[in-house]
Each structure stands twice: as structure tokens, then as C-alpha cells.
């Protein structure tokens, strides 16, 4: 029986290899044919034009800006909420809030996409007087809500794990509860809080359906200095999803290459997450 169990245990490793091999094998040819620099740093994506151009810098930048924007909104919101839940909330309030956060995590991303499409996008259009509200900003708002559960849940766990004695000592020295929470508990839980942020980043980079529904999906270069926040953009994830159905030839291969780039980003995020957790004593 030992062998059977071993085989099942090794299955996860097998799957990781399967994904890696498939992405590398199907992703490399297009990069090779287009040229690495032209592919990664080309600013124009026109896959179906008479003279096609395959530069994915717009997608990379959109993914980075979108994730950064979502974190800019999501981190403060999630961080303060987590500190309140862990250190100040009465038990009943805590349960209700944690339940709400869990629910946010369980809502399918297409539902976020739908609400974003019919509430946030028209909202942006009216508030800023634009012809169309489907934009980078809409995607950032939707993503910032979607990353909240990761940030709050993992931060609360980390804050809960801070030994009570630390806080007692701080209180005994005359610090009030707020000072104790932010100057003693938060620094003590910093690796867990950092991990929560990295997990949020992973979730934001990998999200496809919700951003596809609100970001307009045009392969524009997101130029922040020229009002790029309000432009219709395409993410790495949505670039793969939106053309796959009708793609062929080099275009299809290029889509696999985009997936490979996305996968490498995620591996990088995972490696960062692991090194943070290792430093923090595996909490």
C-alpha cells in the first residue's frame, strides 16, 4: 500500500511539473519567433492586424498598475480592519465581521464582475464625465474589494498569534490600548501581515473574469501621466482569455507565451511569500 500512497503524494509535484512543462513548451516558440525583447517590451499588441505586432508591455504594465492600485486601496482598509477585529472587537462583532470577510472570499468572481460592470463602470462614467467607464480604475476598485479577504484573514491570524504577555507588558508600562496594538502587536505580527499582502498581490495578478468584465479589454498602453487610469486596458490574464476562442497560428502561440509570463510572475510572488514566512518562523 505504501507505493499507492506515495504515488498520490507525488501527484501534486507531478501536476506542478505538468503545468510548468506545458507552459514552457507551448510558450517558448512564439517568444523565440517574435524575439524576447520585442515580445516583452514591445508596446504594441495587434495580433489580428495585416502586419501583426506582438508586444505585451501594455499587458504587463496594466497588471502591475492594476495590482498596485488595488493594494493601495486594499492594504490600509484591510490592515486597519484586521487590527480592529483582532484587538478591539467584542466577540460577537468579531464573529460577524469575520463571517462577512469569509463571504467576500466565497463570492464568485463573475458576480464581482457583474456588479462592477453595472454599478462601478456607469458610476465612473457619470462621476468623471467619460464616454465609457470601463477602465483601469474600475478594475482597481473591483480588485481592491477582492483582495480584502486575503489581507484581513491572514493578518488577523498573525495578530491573534502575538503572545498576550507582550501586550500586557506594554499596558503595564502605561501605553494605552491603541498604542499597544499598533506599536507592539503589529510589529510582532509583521511577517504575517506582509504575507497577507503578498497573498493579496497573487490574487490580484491572477484574477481574470472580474477584470475582463470591467476593464474594457482594449490593448492600450496604460500611461498614467495621460489619464491612463480612465483608459480601457487589458491585463495579462484577460489577454489570454479574450483571444483564445478565435486564435490561430502565431497569435495562439503568443497567448501561451503570455500565460507563461503570468505563471513566472506568480512563481515569483510565491517565492517571496515563502521567504517571508520562513523568516517569520513559519507562522
Amino acid at each position, binding site marked *: *500500500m*505504501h507505493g*499507492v*500512497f506515495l504515488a*498520490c*503524494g507525488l*501527484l*501534486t*509535484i507531478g*501536476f*506542478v511539473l*505538468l*503545468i510548468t512543462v*506545458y*507552459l514552457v513548451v*507551448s510558450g517558448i516558440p512564439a517568444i523565440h519567433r517574435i524575439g524576447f525583447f520585442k515580445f516583452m517590451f514591445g508596446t504594441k499588441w495587434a495580433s489580428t492586424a495585416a502586419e501583426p505586432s506582438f508586444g505585451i508591455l501594455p499587458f504587463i504594465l496594466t497588471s502591475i498598475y492594476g495590482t498596485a492600485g488595488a493594494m493601495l486601496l486594499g492594504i*490600509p*482598509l*484591510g*490592515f*486597519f*480592519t484586521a*487590527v*480592529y477585529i483582532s484587538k*478591539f*472587537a467584542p466577540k460577537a462583532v468579531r464573529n460577524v465581521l469575520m*463571517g*462577512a*470577510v*469569509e*463571504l467576500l472570499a*466565497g*463570492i*464568485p*468572481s*463573475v*458576480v464581482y*464582475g*457583474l*456588479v462592477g*460592470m*453595472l454599478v462601478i463602470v456607469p458610476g465612473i462614467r457619470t462621476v468623471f464625465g467619460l464616454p465609457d467607464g470601463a477602465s483601469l480604475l474600475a478594475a482597481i476598485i473591483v480588485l481592491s*474589494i477582492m483582495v480584502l479577504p486575503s489581507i*484581513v484573514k491572514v493578518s488577523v491570524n498573525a495578530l491573534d498569534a502575538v503572545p498576550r504577555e507582550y501586550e500586557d507588558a506594554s499596558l503595564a508600562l502605561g501605553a494605552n490600548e*491603541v498604542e499597544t496594538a499598533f506599536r507592539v502587536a503589529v510589529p510582532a505580527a509583521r511577517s504575517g501581515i506582509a504575507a497577507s499582502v503578498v497573498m493579496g498581490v*497573487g490574487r490580484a495578478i*491572477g484574477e*481574470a*473574469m472580474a477584470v475582463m*468584465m470591467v476593464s474594457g479589454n482594449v490593448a492600450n498602453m496604460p500611461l498614467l501621466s495621460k489619464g491612463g487610469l480612465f483608459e480601457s486596458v487589458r491585463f495579462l*490574464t484577460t489577454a*489570454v*482569455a479574450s483571444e483564445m*476562442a478565435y486564435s490561430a497560428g502565431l497569435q495562439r502561440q503568443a497567448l*501561451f507565451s503570455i*500565460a507563461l509570463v*503570468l*505563471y513566472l510572475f*506568480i512563481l515569483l510572488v*510565491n517565492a517571496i511569500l515563502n521567504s517571508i514566512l520562513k523568516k517569520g518562523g513559519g507562522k
Partner: protein
Amino acid sequence: MKRSAYTKVLKTAMFASVALVAVLVVAFVFYVLAIGVPNISWNLLSTKPSYLSGNIGILPDILNTVYMIVTTLVVVLPFGVAAAVYLTEYAKNKRVVNAIEYAAETLSGVPSIVYGLVGMLFFCQFLGMKTSLLAGSLTLVIMNLPTVMRTTQESLKTVPQSYREGAFGLGAGKWRVIRTVVLPSCVDGIVTSCILSCGRILGESAALLFTAGFAHSLNGYFKALHNAGATLTIALYFYAKDQGEFEVAYAIAAILLVLALIINLAANLAGRRLRERRK
């Protein structure tokens, strides 16, 4: 003075954040339910869509979702539980354990669109399953394996060592101990992992777009497995994005939201039982 200002600012930031999150969740849920629920009708739930009569029904999508959940769980459970058993009961080599756990972590971070792509290449094309519910389910098996393995592993760790020693002392072999002593006492962990996986399968969309496809035909279980079929999430996406049928989309969203709520409550209950036993 400076101290009290510091305290006040942070307190305000905290209450503002909590209030915003609470309002956000409540507003979101009520908004979706308020628009979606009135659009749910018996006709919507019990028919299939027809271009001829212009009728829209989501029965095929509901069935596909159920088929998808059942198929995925049936395949993933034995593998996930066996992997967990290996890690807690058999594995002696620390490096193998670390490698498996690292792989599981990597798998749980992979974006679902990447799963969809690899699923399409491997199951649909390489194994020749075409775009079908079966290919979609198998893709979801890969996605859910880490969840099942992790949850079962946590629960296996809570089985007291003395149970195993007692059984070994009576002369039972390793496999017999696992079958009769270890597994029965971690059923709640396996149930929890089932509930968590249900939630993920129900909410998954990007991984299914190119593996399970988006047909709305009404099929029996075995026929459906070999045909393309949309789950509720995919149906929502297409009704909203391609066809502009927002009422239908909201109705599906409301159904998904209620199911997500139920699954959350169930997972909480199961999780609480697990924690109580650990104490």
C-alpha cells in the same frame, strides 16, 4: 497631547475602515439579492434556453454545475486523502514532504486562467477529450487537490498517537490501522475539505471557459460528461457580457450568492467541530 492625537487618528482610521468594509459587504449582498431575487422564476429554473421562442432557462447550467461538483469531488477525494495519509502516516523523508508541500502551495497560487489553458492543452487536446464537462472537472481536480490534501492533513494530525499505538499493539498492520482507526476519526476533516472544494468549484469560471465550454444543452449525467456545458458562473458571464441579458445574470448572481452563503455557514460549522475536537 501628541499621544492623544496619535491614538485618535489611529482609532478613527480603524473605525472608518471597519465601517467601510461592513457597509460594502452589506450593500453588495443586498444589492445583488434585491435585483436578482425578483428575476428568479420557476420558468427560469426549470427550462432550457431556446432561440426559437426566445426563452431563457438555466436548468442545463444548474445541472452542469451539479455534475461538475460531483465528478470533481469523486475524483479528487481519494487522491487528496491518500496524499494526506502519505504525508502524515508514511512519509519519513523530510525532503520529500517539503517538496510535496511546496508543490501544493504553488498549485494553490496558480491563477485559474492558467489552469484553464493547461487543462485545454492536456485534457482537451492531448488526451482527446475535446471541450467537455469531464475535461473541466479534471482541470478542477488539479485545482482542488491542494485544498483537500491540506484540510485532511490538518485533521489527520489531530488523531491522537495513542489510537495508532493501541491498534499496532493489538497486532494490526499499517494499512489496517489507517483503514479502521485513522481514517474514521478524521471524517470531519474530509467533510470540511468537500465543502471548501464545493465553494471553489461553484465559483470557478476562468478555468472552465476553455475546458468545459459554454453550451446550454440539457443532458443526462453520462452524456453531459462528454459534451460541452456551461456552469452557472460561465452562464452568468455570457448572459451579462455577450447577450446583455442583465436580469438573467442578476438572477444567477443571486443564486450563486445564496449558495456561497450556505457553503460558508456549512464550512464554519464543520470547522468549529474540528477545532473543538482539537482541544
